[in-house]
């Protein structure tokens, strides 16, 4: 159709200068703080106060990384973060998948149960964390790895459940039914057929649970102190020193953001489902 062709050509011809500018501006906006942080992390402390600022460090150094990891116990925080986030991720993905399967295939508890779980996602953490702090002190879970692992498992469960709920809903159930007729119990049909088929969804749910735990600050701040502290809480040490430890702060930030960004970008395909708890397909 010539009219359509002409319309298409007109679309091509108008060079989208506005769009390129907007996108370019936004890209710079996103990248600039990251670059500056990296720049600061490898800059010798002497370069902090120069005018004009040092845009490209001429004498890069790893001294801040060393200090951040050892002098400020960044390495301990990193190890704690790994232990806690990984454990909570495994538990959250496991329990989340179990529950989601029951909700999706057996409609357990009707709409009430699924919306009750969803509502947990929107509770302000401050409302939970105060009593949890008091309870934890009472039962000896305060400042323990296990305490924070349980807290993180619960706090990531709504997302895991809803992501997997949407995933199972999108999967045909005839294969599980075939397994039942073939001689499986419900558990076997779930474990040997549904779970392998849902593996990509489970991995995606786990990635988002991990990122949520890895970047979490508020629970960690209140529920831990000198033993089970996680990486984000180490940044408390850099507050209010008017710049003396900017290199260390930047170095620690770089160390901390590499794993979560790498995972996040790898799981990009599932991002929309992750952000909307499965309400929107990516």
């Amino acid at each position: 159709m010539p009219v359509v062709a002409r319309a298409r050509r007109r679309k091509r011809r108008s060079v989208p200068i506005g769009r390129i500018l907007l996108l370019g501006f936004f890209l710079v906006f996103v990248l600039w703080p990251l670059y500056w942080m990296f720049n600061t992390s490898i800059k010798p402390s002497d370069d902090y106060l120069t005018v004009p600022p040092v845009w490209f460090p001429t004498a890069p150094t790893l001294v801040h990384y060393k200090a951040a990891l050892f002098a400020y116990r960044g390495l301990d925080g990193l190890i704690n973060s790994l232990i806690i986030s990984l454990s909570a991720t495994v538990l959250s993905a496991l329990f989340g998948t179990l529950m989601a399967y029951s909700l999706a295939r057996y409609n357990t508890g009707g709409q009430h149960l699924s919306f009750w779980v969803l509502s947990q996602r929107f509770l302000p953490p401050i409302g939970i964390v105060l009593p949890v702090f008091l309870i934890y002190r009472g039962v000896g879970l305060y400042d323990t790895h296990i305490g924070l692992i349980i807290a993180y498992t619960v706090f990531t469960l709504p997302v895991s459940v809803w992501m997997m709920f949407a995933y199972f809903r999108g999967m045909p159930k005839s294969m599980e039914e075939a397994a039942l007729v073939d001689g499986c119990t419900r558990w076997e049909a779930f474990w040997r057929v549904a779970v392998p088929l849902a593996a990509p969804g489970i991995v995606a749910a786990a990635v988002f649970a991990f990122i949520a735990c890895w970047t979490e600050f508020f629970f960690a701040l209140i529920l831990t102190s000198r033993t089970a502290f996680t990486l984000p809480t180490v940044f408390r040490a850099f507050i209010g020193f008017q710049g003396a430890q900017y290199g260390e702060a930047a170095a620690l930030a770089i160390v901390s953001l590499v794993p979560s960004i790498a995972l996040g970008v790898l799981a990009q395909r599932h991002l929309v489902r992750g952000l909307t708890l499965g309400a929107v397909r990516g």
Partner: protein
Amino acid sequence: MAEVRITGLHKRYGAFHAVRGIDLDIRDGEFTVLVGPSGCGKSTLLRTIAGLEESSEGTIEIGGEVVNDFRPRDRDVAMVFQDYALYPHMSVAKNIGFGLKARKMPKPEVEARVAEAARMLGITPLLGRFPRQLSGGQRQRVAIGRAIVRNPRIFLFDEPLSNLDAQLRDEMRGEIKRLHQAIATTMIYVTHDQIEAMTLADRIVLMRDGVIEQQGTPLDLFERPGSTFVAGFLGSPRMSFLPGTLTLGGSAAAIRLADVLLPVAPGRKLNGATDGQKVLLGLRPEHLTRAHAARPAQGTFRYDATIDLLQPTGSRSYATFRLAGAPVMAELQAHDVSRPGERLPIDINMNRASIFDVKTERAI
């Protein structure tokens, strides 16, 4: 090997009443086809026999044992699904052997059985492949292999051919029939396709709105439909229905269609019919032929028809004409008729015609 007996079966989904009182006896080794329009409850009935749905009321017996409370796994039945439901993460061999593995059968025996099933189905070269690497027909064979490898008491088929293209569908239909002839296991087959029902079944169970409308051998249902619904559902092109009035007065019964009086075949029983009853005369295209003999045969009515519409299919031509104002289709030999508008003598075989009450739509 087992017979199935279903008594007073109901299935409700909340307010929706999908199956409303089914009584059905299926003999050992019988090929039973559940057929009907979509939403008639045939799939629900099949899934209830498999144990995938719980019945709301009534009992299901397999091999003389009430299985209502049995899990699907304990019923020893096999099912072939519409989308084949092959396990995508397992090879063809693993797919076929899955049910045996679930029975904790020793590995060498599983392998021997899988190999034997694959040989029978001619899919031995495919054993190492995965379902996504197979064509529709090959998947279908694997799905059947998964069933025969166990030799279950009953085979259940849920519209197994509806995802295949027309040619493959014809081929697989033949193979399923051959399978049944060879192993003679009880088979229950759900379809909405009347041709599949006619060609495969020992017995057709025609369902409508959750109840059995009529059951019997294919020819039984075809020749003696119990209602206009059955008559209209089976047979293609459809039966023509002509509204008229039954006259019983005098020596012979007849049906009056406007200005035409068609005598009912002598010896035909008209149970409970009354004089002046409003009826529908049901004529299948093959009940109408071009008259060649000088006089119509016994029970045959001759009519001079003017052809309105002609649909040649090659071997046959379907000719539509008006009989007392209502359209009727006749199946003629291709050389019997050449063009619309032609006038022909048509013989109507009243021996095979069906008569239905207008109100109840039941056969008389």
